[in-house]
């Protein structure tokens, strides 16, 4: 690794930190716009004005805006996101720490499934170019990208959960099972958990597979045009070997970058699916927190999602520059 690359990574890192800081500031300001009392979900309807004032003091909401902002930044550095209003005795971090793994399992499993299917499908589509199968396949993929995810989820639910009664309709497991889970490992080793994950994973993957498939297909078509592919064809290699070994390998790079970015964006986009399947993740918590006017919790969930996205954007940038030497640092801006 040469010095240029190290500088590049360092520069990108600092830039990401700056971006995060601006987002965090915007977030702070955004939540001052909230329509109801910041304590709305906390205050009991029996409270007196004095009790309210005491509460405002307890959450630091009586201080001037500038001071609140500083406290907020300092706390963020310590990953202290404050107390929730609607869950008594729990901090925002407690709630989010429980949600985060669930969101990650769902995101990763659906992305992996989507990219496996997408890459293979893309190769197949490229190999079958011009055929009726390709036309049907591509159209189907476009349809899955155009159909609202929650609607696909609803249809799958109706069919598999309500009509055939094959799969559970919501949550991650019944309480009878859940209370025995002491650690994340217990959860991951539980077949019940995986059964609950099937429908949401499949719904998400159905949507997500379109991007790698289309990307892989067009990359393949381009690579197949290149001289070195023609060369290996001439050298007498089987068509299969040409496809997989030569072409696919070269067409994979951008797909990998897309996967990295996909992790961040899926976590932000899972909100709706988590709602449909009552999946206890960051997205569901965010929606409920907003509905309950539990602003510290909503703010915390939002921050977490943004953090993951910025981090993944950073990783994608690095990957892109390391994997594809054709791209100089100046062209980075083009990779969103």
């Amino acid at each position, binding site marked *: 690794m040469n010095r240029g690359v190290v500088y590049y990574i360092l520069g990108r890192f600092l830039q990401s930190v700056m971006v995060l800081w601006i987002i965090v500031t915007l977030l702070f300001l955004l939540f001052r716009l909230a329509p*109801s009392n910041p304590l709305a*979900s906390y205050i009991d309807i029996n409270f007196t004005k004095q009790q309210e004032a005491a509460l405002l003091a307890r959450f630091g909401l009586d201080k001037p805006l500038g001071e609140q902002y500083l406290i907020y930044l300092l706390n963020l550095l310590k990953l202290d996101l404050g107390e929730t209003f609607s*869950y*008594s*005795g729990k901090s925002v971090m407690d709630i989010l720490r429980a949600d985060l793994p669930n969101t990650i399992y769902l995101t990763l499993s659906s992305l992996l499934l989507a990219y496996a299917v997408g890459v293979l499908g893309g190769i197949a589509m490229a190999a079958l170019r011009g055929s009726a199968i390709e036309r049907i396949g591509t159209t189907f993929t476009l349809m899955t990208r155009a159909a609202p995810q929650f609607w696909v989820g609803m249809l799958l639910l109706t069919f598999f959960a309500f009509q055939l009664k094959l799969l*559970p309709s919501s949550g991650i497991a019944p309480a009878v099972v859940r209370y025995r889970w002491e650690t994340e490992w217990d959860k991951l080793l539980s077949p019940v958990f995986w059964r609950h994950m099937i429908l949401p994973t499949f719904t998400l993957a159905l949507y997500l597979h379109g991007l790698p498939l289309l990307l892989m297909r067009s990359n393949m078509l381009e690579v197949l045009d290149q001289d070195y592919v023609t060369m290996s064809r001439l050298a007498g290699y089987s068509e299969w070997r040409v496809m997989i070994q030569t072409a696919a390998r070269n067409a994979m790079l951008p797909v990998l970058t897309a996967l990295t970015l996909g992790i961040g964006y899926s976590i932000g986009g899972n909100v709706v699916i988590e709602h449909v399947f009552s999946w206890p993740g960051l997205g569901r918590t965010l929606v409920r927190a907003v509905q309950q006017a539990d602003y510290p919790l909503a703010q915390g969930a939002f921050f977490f999602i943004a953090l993951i996205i910025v981090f993944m954007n950073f990783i994608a940038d690095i990957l892109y520059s390391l994997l594809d030497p054709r791209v100089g640092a100046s062209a980075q801006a083009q990779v969103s």
Partner: protein
Amino acid sequence: MSRKLARISVIAALLALVMVAIVPVSSQDMGEVVPPIIVHSVTQAERPIEYETTRLVVENMRELGLEVEHRAIPWAQLIDEIWYSRVEGEGRAERPFQMTHWRMVGRPERSDPDEFTYNLFHSSVRDGGYNFVGYNNPQYDALAEAQRVEVADKEARLDLICEAQQVIRNDMVNAYFIHPLTPQVVNTAVFNPDSIVSQAGIGVHNFWTWIGIEPTTDDKTLITSTTSFLNSFNPLEIAGDAPSRVTEMTWDRLMRINPIGVAEPWAAESVVWEDPLNVVVTLRAGMTWHDGEAVQSDDAAYSFEAALAGTTQTDEEGNEEFRPEAPDYHPFARNVANIEIIDDLSLRFTLKTPSAAFETSSLAKLNLIPKHIWEPIINDLLTQDDADVDSIQEEIPIGSGPFKYVAFDVNEFVFLEAFDDHWARPKIDTWIMNVLPNQEATLGQIQSGEMNFLWEWPGDPGVLQNIVAENEHLDLFSAISIGFNYFAFNVRYAPFDDVTFRQAVAHAIPQQFIIDNIFNGLAAPADSFVSAALEYWRQCDDLPTYDYSIEGARALLESAGYSWDDDGRLQYP
């Protein structure tokens, strides 16, 4: 010159004064159009039934010549715009609320009419308490106070309660329209239907069912769910309907409200009134806490002392204010003047004033908590300015009730198991409540058997009826609730300060239509804050009726001097 100037300024000042005096009057000048009205409700996504009802009533109000906006907002925000926006300038909303859909839920301690009679309408709780509509009627105040201390003569108290209902109905302070028939579904393939107890005004999801329900299979687990929040597991906090279900089983009480709505001794072996101010309570012998310690009279005494504990603080303006550490329970213990421990099992409560509702709303309300656990916690809280018991969550909650804690995951689930050493050990072994905000999921689970007791259903009741009809293993139970749904008017301001106007709006509420179409028949007509479920307290002469009739409403307005302009808009008299 200067004298002339002075005279002019005096005249000007006088004129200004007169103007100021006239303006409030002229704002309701003859013939002025009634300004636009905002009617609040929760959002459709949150509670479809309440949203649709409000929508219907708003449509009807428009036919009276009113300009009406239906403002549907989430519950948290609604509290802000109603509960905390009662008077001009106080609210966080731009102006005080005018009219809103509201509901009071049924709770066992509301089996005594005192809570609703006093708290909903007494002028002393107008500013911060439950009388958020701002009703202020000295004649009514007298009635509400009198029924409270009428301990000896139950019939005399009935007369007072009846009169109170008459006054409220006449004044149309709240437009009641239904008592829900809370629909509940039980899987009778795994439970004996005869062992399910229906409690008056509450339904089958009550303490007596939890301890009495008989499983008919080897799996002795009752699984239920809630669509709302399960955010605390705390004997000194009233956090909502679902947490209340949990606390009432984990912590015992001296008395409990029995299935017909009367308080009877429970953890107490006897409750003996020496006179209207003194009552001696004797505990059952041999009770233990879930950690094995014995339950004694000093625990019982401490349970009340904890609710009474608090600090007196002085604010910036020099006002002294008492801040209870358990603000939710403090009102129910407030009437206790002194507690005297007689021996290990008996104690004497001395009250400040005689109270007809003391058994129902205090002895049957406060949870018995172990002194050895809570005394250090409360003492610690007393030294802190800004924390109360709501911020406490015990690692392992300890009570003496028939169920004990196994696991609790905030807003996910509660897991309890039968306490073997309890003298009334439940017939089931485990009791589980899941949080399922998604109604579709709730339906899926009750049909598949994943859940076997559905106690709460905010959705379309018709769906539930269909499900039960289609599934042989499910039975529908429904009971008329103590609670009610109604439209609350802010009677402090025009146009709702006018009785006739409120009565006209009441005529615009299609009660029977709402019951038939929105509730699918699963509701009973309401005309008072005392539910038909509380039969004794409804033995009154007929209350005034307000039949649904737009013409009737318009005629009523016309007779009071209201008129309509050329565009058909309603004008003040």
